């Protein structure tokens, strides 16, 4: 039998990597930056975090290193898109490929070793899971209630107007991208340090792409990101349980389920026209557009 409480606890854990990555991408997209490099930043964080945790024996040091590594590799994207004004979609894809390759190369020495144990937090739930949950209201408050958050949304909605009012479009976007990188890094490290407890090549397995989908699905809101991450995490846990229970459904179909469910909900939401500008559910007006100030 499937016990709801244990499923929920597993769900929290399964959704945490995507929750971090998607919250980071949410902030970047709200600033008008479409960074498709989430997967690459996650895998970089997964390796850097694992390596630092293994070397120091302190998993929390690992997460700090993962955040730093994610932010550092996102700087590549900053240089390409904010300095050289390269196409954001192409730069993001390049970042993903680069991150995956880089991590595979430097990850060789860490294959087969085990991560240091992680002390459990309150209610026997991982500290990083708590941190992820706390980030949801924090990001919501930042975007909707704080002055820097308002400026960030302004930059993402109409960069020409933001510039005309004297706000630094490029600086705001650089900070948002770096935040997105750090969050993706922590999300990736959660997989290697807290879930799998070891390093394997390509271990993020498309979580970055799901995070990107969830940002759209959330209609660019923090609570929506949480709902999306939980949906994906929930279906993941459920299908694992069903597999373990030996249900007579092909394993391939079950493994597909979380991705299918996410896409299905995305389609259903967009079919119901929840993305109109009047309702405030539309993509930021300057999303994916490069800004060039005419002086």
């Amino acid at each position, binding site marked *: 039998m499937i016990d709801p409480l244990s499923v929920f606890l597993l769900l929290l854990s399964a959704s945490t990597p995507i929750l971090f990555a998607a919250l980071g991408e949410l902030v970047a997209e709200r600033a008008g930056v479409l960074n498709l490099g989430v997967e690459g930043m996650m895998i970089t964080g997964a390796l850097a975090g694992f390596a630092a945790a293994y070397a120091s024996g302190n998993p929390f040091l690992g997460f700090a290193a993962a955040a730093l590594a994610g932010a550092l590799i996102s700087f590549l994207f900053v240089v390409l898109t904010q300095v050289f004004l390269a196409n954001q979609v192409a730069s993001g894809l390049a970042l993903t490929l680069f991150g995956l390759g880089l991590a595979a190369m430097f990850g060789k020495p860490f294959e087969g070793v085990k991560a240091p144990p992680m002390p459990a937090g309150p209610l026997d739930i991982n500290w990083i899971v708590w941190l992820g949950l706390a980030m949801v209201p924090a990001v919501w408050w930042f975007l909707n209630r704080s002055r820097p958050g*308002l400026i960030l*949304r302004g930059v993402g909605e109409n960069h020409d107007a933001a510039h*005309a009012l*004297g706000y630094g479009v490029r600086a705001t976007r650089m900070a948002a991208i770096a935040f997105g990188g750090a969050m993706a890094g922590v999300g990736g490290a959660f997989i290697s340090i807290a879930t799998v407890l070891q390093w394997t090549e390509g271990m993020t397995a498309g979580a970055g792409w799901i995070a990107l989908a969830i940002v759209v699905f959330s209609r660019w809101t923090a609570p929506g990101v949480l709902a999306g991450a939980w949906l994906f995490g929930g279906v993941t846990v459920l299908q694992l349980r069903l597999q373990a229970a030996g249900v007579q459904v092909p394993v391939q179909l079950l493994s597909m389920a979380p991705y299918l469910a996410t896409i299905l909900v995305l389609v259903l939401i967009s079919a119901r026209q929840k993305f109109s*500008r*009047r309702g405030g559910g539309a993509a930021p*007006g300057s999303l994916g557009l490069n800004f060039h100030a005419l002086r």
Partner: protein
Amino acid sequence: MTANVFRAERIGKSYPGVRANDEVSFAVAAGEIHALLGENGAGKSTLVKMIYGLVRPDDGRMWLGDALYAPTDPRAARQSGVAMVFQHFSLFDALTVAENIALGMENPPPRRELAARITQVSHDFGLPLNPGRRIVTLSAGERQRVEIIRCLLQNPRLLIMDEPTSVLTPQEAELLFATLRKLAAKGTAILYISHKLEEIRAHCDRATILRHGRVVDSCDPRAHSARELAAMMVGGEMRAIDRSGRQAGEVLLKVQGLSQPAPSAEGTALKEVALTLRAGEILGIGGVAGNGQEELLAALSGEVRSTPGTVLLDGRDLSTEGPEPRRIAGLLAAPEDRLGHAAVPDFSLAENTLLTAGARKGLVRGGLIDHGGARAYAEAVIRDFDVRTPGPGAAARALSGGNLQKFVIGREVMQDPRVLVVNQPTWGVDAGAAAAVRQSLLDLARKGAGIIVISQDLDELLELSDRFCALNEGRLSNPLSTKGLTLDSIGLMLGGAHGMEEARA
């Protein structure tokens, strides 16, 4: 005379290849509405950008009150008491009124207090606004209120307004001027930029006239006629428009029962549109933007097809035909958006002629492009319409708005259409080029073509058209002869515009 609030002394600014401003000196007194007058490209925008701190002057000095004033960015300008309402609204569509206003203030109060102050100040000035609404849901007039309230909340000493009435109905414009007069009475200095001469004559206390980046004159606009002011602006007499020699002939275009659903959530549905256009006639269609202008043009050009029997040219049903068969039949259109809709930005002018003139001018034969012919046709348009460009090989995006507009209109006019539909033919075009475009439309009508001019510029419609109808929420009113029509009566025809109550009070 009260003290000067703002003074500029010999300020100048150069861009590569252009001297945008040269030795510009002028002053604005407290309580004065001061007009800055000039054609497009005369340097008005550069000048106000320097005052608002967006651009730094190369030389010269500015004073605000008694203190030297050299803002490093717009935030510094706002802190010094300078506020600006932009020509193209600097608003954030998806954000609320209150959020937009907070972004335009240096030290906004907490949210609730700000909302209360917006409500209060907007009522004090007779410009009611709901702070919680999103900008996308507002009309152009309401959007401008947001910009104005944003400035008012900062109690500016100098308020800059960059062509604020270009998107407003006459009633909305009246409301705006009433607000400005209230502000001026409280001692605020107002710098008002426009090229609408009548408006400046009616409302401004003083005018500084710019030409090619220099101050050429300064005068009391009330003491001069619009014609004299225009002459100062362009540096010579304006050629009067020649409307003579036109005769309304047989019916060319008949539109009946044309209804279309809205193409998008932000679009407008067309409702039972009917019109008749005769040879040699110009029909003007006015209305506030977003009332179905683009949709009507699309339905006439063939971009959107309609139910059979709704669009007839010479009695032939074209309703279900696309743009190319309609062009061959003689129904041509020039859309509002020059760059991207009427012309491909990265194509050369020669290539751009192929987009609409391919069939009628025989530039495409047996599926192959006649490049020599396209070049020759582009050269002819450039010559006859005085398009300032190096040649037919120049990319469309390299042309200024006014020059590209002349090219786009010329491309259609020189195909000798039976019926030509144009939307906003002179939007953002300076006075000289606008006059040339209008004259070309009149000349075309004289040769027996029927023309539909869709525009928001009511002066233009009155100048050009024989009959006038208003487009309001996708409905077309019955046409009226323009003889004896005044701006006021047209404004009422446009009806349903927002904020009319205040304007009537």
